[in-house]
């Protein structure tokens, strides 16, 4: 599904990723953990094609395609989804209008016909029902005046509507209380099938109690310093990132 090799990335002239390699197979859930400033968000933005980043070297294959040659919208239409740590507000753009615009962009890319507002409402109803979301999400501006928890739920709603092959969720747990975290995590779990892949980017282990990863990777100073199974997340809880990173260097 995804094959990252030797990825080096700079932001405003400062190198952030110093050679990241990571392979995510179909149906797999990977967790990338690491302290603040380790490059987690840069990795997710590099995958999505953020224009502020400079790719120094390395390669990314997504579903056999060279991701680095694709525009952000082409990546999205090919089935790559980035769930934001801080979802952006777009005042005045109705949420359901936005969702339909995104949904139709994907349909056009797949050579299908666009859905009109009425047809799309049925799809939206179903997805909102699935995630237990109420109607206010429909007509309000995109994330406009949403609480932190509502914004994260709205990210998962977008994921549900766009049905990506690979979702990268960047600190989807940050700023959520335990109840909201459970709702969001259950939403994500309900969308996962054996064909879908997921990368969970998180600082804390607690998210992984709700969404069980197959693999855990530790990112430190722009490199993956350790990879393992779910048990690695637990040992991180005990040792902390510093101990682990130090151990890896030694």
């Amino acid at each position, binding site marked *: 599904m995804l094959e990252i090799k030797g990825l080096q990335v700079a932001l405003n002239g400062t190198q952030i990723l110093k050679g990241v390699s990571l392979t995510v197979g179909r149906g797999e859930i990977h967790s990338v953990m690491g302290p603040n400033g380790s490059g987690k968000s840069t990795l997710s933005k590099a995958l999505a094609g953020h224009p502020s980043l400079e790719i120094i070297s390395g390669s990314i294959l997504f579903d056999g395609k060279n991701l680095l040659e694709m525009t952000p919208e082409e990546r999205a*239409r090919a089935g790559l989804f980035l769930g934001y740590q801080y979802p952006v507000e777009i*005042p005045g753009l109705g949420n359901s209008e936005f969702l339909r615009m995104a949904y139709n962009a994907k349909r056009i890319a797949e050579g299908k016909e666009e859905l009109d507002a009425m047809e799309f409402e049925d799809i939206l109803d179903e997805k909102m029902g699935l995630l237990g979301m109420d109607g206010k999400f429909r007509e309000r501006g995109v994330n406009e005046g949403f609480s932190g928890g509502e914004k994260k739920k709205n990210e998962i709603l977008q994921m549900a509507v766009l049905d990506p092959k690979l979702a990268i969720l960047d600190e989807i747990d940050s700023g959520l209380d335990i109840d909201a975290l459970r709702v969001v995590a259950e939403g994500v779990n309900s969308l996962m099938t054996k064909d879908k892949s997921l990368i969970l980017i998180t600082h804390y282990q607690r998210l992984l109690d709700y969404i069980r990863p197959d693999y855990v990777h530790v990112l430190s100073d722009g490199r993956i310093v350790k990879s393992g199974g779910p048990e690695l997340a637990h040992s991180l809880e005990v040792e902390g990132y510093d101990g682990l990173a130090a151990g890896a260097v030694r």
Partner: protein
Amino acid sequence: MKDDNVETGLMDALDARREYKYGFTTDIESDSFAKGLSEDVVRAISAKKEEPDWLLQFRLDAYRKWTQMPQPDWAQLKIEPIDFNAISYYSSPKSKKKLGSLEDVPQEIRETFDKLGIPLEEQKRISNVAVDAVFDSVSVATTHKRRLLEAGVIFCSISEAVREYPELVKKYLGSVVPPGDNFYAALNSAVFSDGSFVYVPPNTIPPMELSTYFRINTEGTGQFERTLIICAEKSQVSYIEGCTAPQFDTNQLHAAIVELVAMDDASIKYSTVQNWYPGDPETGKGGIYNFVVKRGKCAGKNSKISWTQIETGSAITWKYPSCILQGDGSVGEFYSVALTTGRQQADTGTKMIHIGKNTRSLIIAKGIAADRSSNAYRGLVKMTPGASGARNYTQCDSLLIGGRSSAHTFPYIEGGNPTAQVEHEASTSKINEEQLFYLQQRGVSREQAISAVINGFCKEVFNHLPMEFSVEARKLLSLKLENSVA
């Protein structure tokens, strides 16, 4: 595209809108006055239109006032000095028959309006909109006149109104914008050649929307039209105007006056989609100088006047649609989107003059400045001593695209009554790269993303346009700001 920096990426996306699709010229013989302005020219216009003496005197009085007035220079505009003697003040298409009748519109003009998307054949029109079509200095046709008259509504050219309804015209012409009000008002009052007239009798709602479409065609002419709308007790009217002009290297002057009068419990909604030729986006050469005086008087109690304007064209825009809130409990509204691109300059806003008790006004102004354009909001809220319990709320938001455009806000507040309340909020922001990236990450193209963000920014204003014009306005804005992706 991914390695482009933010500004270049945006500029690229903006590039292909450069084409102004209404820039064509209609090849028709015209009967134009020689260039220049004098008392004789004013008399000649009046004679051409076979006007009564009172109207000639009105014009001459205005002309004399105009010669005493300096050209205003207080606006945030850089304008080359205008040579008022280099303009022809009257130009009408040559026609064997008298113009003004729907059947006798010359074929070339009929085709012109077809091309502009304003077919004059009534059966082709969106059935719920009547149109007065003004071509250079004359109204060439008014549609649905008869159906409106059956409802008691008078809708015709102002020239026809002078002939057919002289008492109404005499009573209200200049009653809201006096001839000596300001430089451009005086100029228009002296030389206005045509325009639209509407009278809605008491307790009436016209069976359709009314509109005027202004087309300037002949190079070197100015357009000086005059619109007068009177809405009697407990009546309502919704009126729309649209404007385009050919692409010439020389500047053309458009100096109009619009006067609205609303009686007790009457409501007038006036919407404008302005798309005059903006001049060359690189050099700034050519384009319309748009100096317009629009003012409404809420004469009756609980009357309401609502201005909505989408200003996208003209090299220079200088206009301040205003409300005189004279009747107790009357309401004034101003919703505006002003978009400037290329080398365009706009200084636009409103005046809300609160005179009656418990009068209310609302101002929502959105300015979008791209390329090397300049975009200013200028607004006055005045609370006179009698305006007890009056309230105003003003919100001005500016959006900058690219690093070379500028936005300014000049709010003036004059408080003369301690019980009146005035609230003002303003913001300026740059188009946000994170918003665009967020939309792109969901599969939306960059061009569509720009359009979506800008339409979102303008939504409160678009919501106040009549339905089909709201769709048009969104398309127009997208067209002006989008790269047409092949």
